[in-house]
């Protein structure tokens, strides 16, 4: 199993690379479409701002994005990577995303400390690929100031709560996302990444 981690050039992706390796895959850190071509699945990592992220993704990985869009290759977006899958974000202005999932990315409410930083538990709301190995109440490491509001509620397979309900895991066809960082979530995170790899094999 080969996984391409798309390097958006926005910071360190060593952790996500190691996380995917620990889950049992061979990782290619892809700088462009060509390197991502031979992979069985892709991971869109979760560092940086939305605007820079979407620019880098469309600029460097246009063909890979098209393949994801056509459902030809399974994709996992982590944190910002998950937010990029949505229609639109309000982080630092209005920016269009990939629109693979209909919905918006908005700032956390002023009633809570921002960023939402630390370990929070999830509630599994429906059976999903990524939730197959984790139980209700499992803890994951979150670091984010914006969160996703999907239009179709059925894409949310697990949620957490921080001032508002927050989708923690989303799934739609071969498109997956986690708002938390599985690569920083100890053993529980490793299990989620492993479930993604197993789901991607099918």
């Amino acid at each position: 199993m080969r996984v391409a981690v798309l390097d958006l050039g926005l910071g360190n992706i060593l952790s996500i690379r190691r996380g995917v390796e620990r889950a049992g895959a061979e990782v290619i850190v892809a700088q462009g479409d060509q390197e991502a071509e031979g992979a069985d699945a892709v991971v869109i990592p979760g560092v940086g701002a939305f605007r820079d992220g979407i620019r880098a993704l469309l600029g460097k990985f246009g063909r890979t994005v098209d393949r994801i869009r056509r459902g030809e290759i399974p994709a996992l977006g982590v944190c910002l990577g998950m937010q990029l899958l949505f229609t639109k974000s309000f982080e630092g202005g209005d920016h269009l995303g990939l629109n693979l999932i209909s919905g918006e990315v908005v700032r956390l409410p002023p009633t809570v400390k921002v960023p939402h930083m630390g370990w929070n538990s999830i509630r599994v709301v429906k059976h999903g690929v990524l939730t197959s190995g984790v139980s209700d109440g499992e803890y994951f490491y979150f670091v984010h100031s914006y969160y996703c509001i999907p239009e179709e509620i059925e894409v949310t397979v697990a949620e957490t709560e921080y001032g508002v309900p927050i989708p923690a895991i989303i799934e739609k066809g071969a498109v997956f996302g986690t708002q938390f960082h599985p690569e920083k979530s100890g053993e529980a995170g490793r299990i989620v990444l492993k479930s993604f790899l197993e789901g991607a094999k099918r």
Partner: protein
Amino acid sequence: MTLTKRIIPCLDVDRGRVVKGIRFVNLRDAGDPVEQALEYERQGADEIVFLDITASSDNRETVIDMVRKTAYELSIPFTVGGGIRSYADARRVLMAGADKVSLNTAAVQNPRLITEGAEIFGSQCIVVAIDAKRTGERSWEVYTHGGRRGTSMDAVEWAMKAEEMGAGEILLTSMDFDGSKDGYDLELTRLVSEGVNIPVIASGGAGNPAHIYNALTVGKADAALAASIFHYAEYTVGEVKRYLMERGVPVRVVRHPNQGDKERPA
């Protein structure tokens, strides 16, 4: 579902070795910061802070090497502080795999560094560490250079300014209580915690689980950092968490003991 309070063991590192590292039964090398960090991860630590206390500045490579090895092995977040004087220093540590850098003296001398770091890496990567010493009733002065130099800046005001500049978190150390094992400075912790809208890590003074409980409840801190009580194996992280949980403080309980792989980068 609640965001849990974090327990953060701190490792003091001098020239790449843990200062006064003690021998846990399952560690091959008690002085190895990576091994110590992994032991804390197994105990259920939520994050790790490495504080580089090396006096000379010619050990940059040693630190970067430690960060790289830690990032390779650890599967929880970690912060590196001490000796980060410039944007270039911060960048190297972050690119080597640290999740956050903690800025202390450099942030006071050049607050733009906070903004610059936050704009490029995101606020969540930039921790501002404040060493505060009480100067009177409800007033604390910020100290720099490892607590050797006063700044005449007020600690609570500096915390608020740091947030404004883009800090994602405050690591607040009471110099009066640090090393005392008499508990955290609850008044200081509470004032800073209420004064900012970013997470605050209480530091300095932990001698037992009750002190940590107080910092997280009375002090309203989001996380508690401790060194010696974990370091000398007086309590494990798991024991502290059990104590907190029994008293209704939300903490993460580790259900899967980490079996992590043991291979090392060549």
